[in-house]
């Protein structure tokens, strides 16, 4: 029979890895302004081959709202998890079942 082991559960929770941050905070790039956006504003094309891609970092090509959008999605997932846990039988009977 499968039994809930609180110690193992607790160890697993404590050994959970740090969240991997793949979304960098948006930063302004003078280079992109000059080589891409100023040209687009004048309705001119820009050349992808001529861009210095090593000078462009992920933070320069991340829109300002992007990080906030991710945070909102993360919060929504946390809320979904809470809602799921509230519907489990142990919480519904309002007494300690597992530990």
């Amino acid at each position, binding site marked *: 029979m499968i039994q809930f082991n609180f110690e193992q559960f607790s160890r697993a929770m404590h050994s959970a890895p740090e969240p991997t941050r*793949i*979304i960098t905070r948006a930063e302004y790039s003078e280079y992109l302004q000059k080589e891409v956006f100023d040209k687009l504003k004048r309705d001119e094309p820009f050349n992808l*081959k001529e861009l210095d891609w090593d000078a462009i*970092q992920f933070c320069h*090509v991340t*829109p300002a*709202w992007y990080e906030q959008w991710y945070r909102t999605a993360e919060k929504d*997932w946390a809320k979904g998890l809470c809602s799921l846990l509230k519907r489990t039988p142990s919480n519904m009977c309002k007494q300690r079942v597992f530990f």
Partner: protein
Amino acid sequence: MYDYDYENEVLLALRTFKYLQVYEPVVFQAMLKELGSVDFDALYDNMVFILEEVFDSPYTDPELDEDYCYGMLYLEHRTLDEFLDLSVQYCDLTGVSPAVFRKKLQDIILFHVCDITESVYDLEFRYDDVGQLCVPIWFAESFDVMVFSSGLVDLAMYLQEENKRLQAQISALQSETETIWREAA
């Protein structure tokens, strides 16, 4: 930030190119040769072509689709297969059920592809005989190719990091097992 009406779309397109430069240099060089000089419209039009190249996805023309679906693609990527391969190794060493990792991968895909992009009408998780994953994705009417491609880029980057972490755990477990065997001998 850059005082251009469509700066978000352009930034997301450039973000996809930056991902290609860092993680898929061969595809990146092919894209540069193919595209060269672009304006905003060309960036938008070519993003589907880039998705097809990177995510092995034969893209169905939106006009061919029926009902509420705007179009579809089959998501296949080496990071997905690497994750599943590594998870099998990890499960062999620890006795954890592979179903746990399959569910985890599904959650990762749902988070990055559905919740972030808000472009998905429906998707399925299909495993073939050798355990490789293919995810057919049907687009919603709110499909935005720039946001969607950026979501896929985030998914690929997240999985690269997750695979590194899993690989490190497997190496640690293997060396631990070797030590135990050596001591026992």
